[in-house]
């Protein structure tokens, strides 16, 4: 789902179409960098500024300035105790030191990571499997439209509502416990949300359900972008289907897989809606499902701006590092082939 500027929810994942398969899409950077032939007397270039002005104006006011002021705030002591306002007072790096001196942030970072990994591993495996099946000429699965529609559906569901639904389903007297009891699996209801493993598992399950369809469609597009001649050649050479997968599909899918993993990580760092609603913002049991953004939200809601600033800056740098990798992948993908001097692009040039 697209991240559409400020005021929008965390983009759990960047949309699939951001990543163009290698077969096309060299024209962007080329287009951007190319000198267009000199135009006639009238110079239209100033119109360009006019057209991009609203974007940059709104971006500056509602995203860039807030970002700078967030950084600025992180160096101040600024919070409320009851009705009393403490600060703002310049304290240098004290907020950052406080952040790391207790175990909160490392614990919450670890929580976020555990829940992300628990959801992501099944997600990528299932998505890879389905993508290969759906694109397989040999299998020719029927009802693909139906299955794709169903598995993509949870992606559009409101995360907050989905989480609330899971909360009611898995509450002590909820339908799941009723079903388990009527099947005779248990006499006393499981108290899922008091168990660390179960709560984390539920968060991971929801993340899995919400994202595996999206990943499947993205990987399918990647596989369909692979030159079909390669599969044919492998088949003529007598390759088995698992050999085709490991020797042809997987290596050629590698760039898109890297892209998927890193954008999913960026989304994972932003995990909020699902655990927030499921645990009512408490990160229960015992803070084991508290994520970084939930922690940030807690500080924002209680107007502890100094600490909120420090947490924000931390999250900013974590995502910035990952984002930069994505940026490099995107730019590399969009550069005209002639710019590269490695072998891969040479073959590309020949093909073109």
């Amino acid at each position, binding site marked *: 789902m*697209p991240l559409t500027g400020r005021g929008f929810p965390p983009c759990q994942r960047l949309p699939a179409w951001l990543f163009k398969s290698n077969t096309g899409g060299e024209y962007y950077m080329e287009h951007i960098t190319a000198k267009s032939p000199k135009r006639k007397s009238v110079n239209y270039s100033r119109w360009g500024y006019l*057209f*991009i002005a609203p*974007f*940059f104006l*709104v971006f500056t006011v509602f995203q860039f300035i*807030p970002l700078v002021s967030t950084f600025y705030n992180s160096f101040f002591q600024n919070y409320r105790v009851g009705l009393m306002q403490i600060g703002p007072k310049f304290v240098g790096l004290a907020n950052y030191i406080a952040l790391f001196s207790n175990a909160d942030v490392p614990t919450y970072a670890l929580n976020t990571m555990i829940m992300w990994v628990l959801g992501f591993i099944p997600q990528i495996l299932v998505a890879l499997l389905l993508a290969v099946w759906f694109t397989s000429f040999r299998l020719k699965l029927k009802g693909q439209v139906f299955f794709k529609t169903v598995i993509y559906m949870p992606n559009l569901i409101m995360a907050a509502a989905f989480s609330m639904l899971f909360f009611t389903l898995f509450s002590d007297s909820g339908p799941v416990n*009723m079903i388990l009891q009527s099947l005779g699996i248990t006499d006393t209801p499981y108290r899922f949300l008091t168990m660390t493993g179960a709560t984390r598992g539920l968060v991971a399950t929801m993340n899995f359900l919400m994202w595996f*369809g999206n990943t499947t469609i993205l990987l399918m597009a990647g596989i369909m972008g692979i030159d079909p001649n390669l599969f044919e050649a492998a088949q003529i050479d007598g390759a088995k289907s698992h050999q085709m997968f490991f020797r042809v599909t997987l290596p050629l899918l590698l760039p898109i897989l890297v892209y998927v993993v890193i954008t999913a990580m960026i989304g994972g760092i932003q995990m909020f809606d699902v655990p927030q609603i499921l645990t009512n913002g408490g990160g229960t049991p015992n803070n084991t499902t508290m994520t970084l953004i939930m922690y940030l939200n807690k500080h924002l809601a209680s107007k502890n701006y100094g600490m909120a600033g420090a947490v924000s800056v931390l999250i900013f740098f974590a995502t910035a590092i990952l984002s930069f990798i994505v940026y490099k992948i995107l730019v590399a993908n969009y550069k005209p082939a002639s710019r590269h001097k490695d072998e891969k692009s040479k073959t590309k040039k020949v093909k073109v």
Partner: protein
Amino acid sequence: MSNKEAGTGAKALLTFTRVLCYIFLIFLTILCLFSFYILIVNSTRANSEIQKGFTLIPGKSFLTNFNKLIANDNIPILRALGNSLFISTLTAMLTTYFSAMTAFGLHIYNFKLKKFAFSFILLIMMVPTQVSTLGFIQLITKMGLMDTFYPLIIPSIAAPIVFFFMFQYLASVLPQEIVEAARVDGSNEFNTFNSIVLPIMKPALAVQAIFSFVTSWNNYFVPALVIDSKNNKTIPILIAQLRSADYMKFDLGQVYIMICVAIIPLLIVYLFLSKFIIRGVTLGSVKG
């Protein structure tokens, strides 16, 4: 495909694999739909029925539950629906229009800062909104915009990812010549964009309008911090409120109906547009 000699054995294997695939796919389908099925069944049953136990057969109390929810003063559900609809619609319109405009500006014109502007947008694309929320809240507090819809709508004008989509699309459908031809015909640049370029971009606009609408409809983090008064609440905020209320005292029929209201309208829209939406997800990647 399989040779004729190897025929039967390979064929049997293929059928076997296919059956396994279908079993797994059906399993995933059930996994995806099961929770929604329970939701729909329970939303049609009265509180007392829900407490008694679970059945797979829907009840008859859907309308009763729904009317009770509307009558519930603590949950201004209709108001919230209206608010969510209003914010999401405006957001979708602003996002698509201005993203298309920015994409057009960067696609057609050559100016000094063009490359910088493009790289800049690409670079900021992935900065999560949450990290600047602190400054954002302070800013709109100073502007006196707290507890209004403006901070949820206006910022959607700058949507890097939607811009990028529009740019990809424009680059593949709009040759420079069209704009030049319009110039020869005496069209002003702005008119060219509105009356010639926008119609060409209809498919891209539609896809992004849908996605922007859904994203805005589901948005929780920022609205929860901005909106305060009862009458301005959106659906996700009400859901959170429902969760923090004393759950056990609640009429469960109403709880399920409430979740339905948040989910079902989008599901219906999705069922009608699903083909279109799924194609939209990969529009950029399959097109050369």
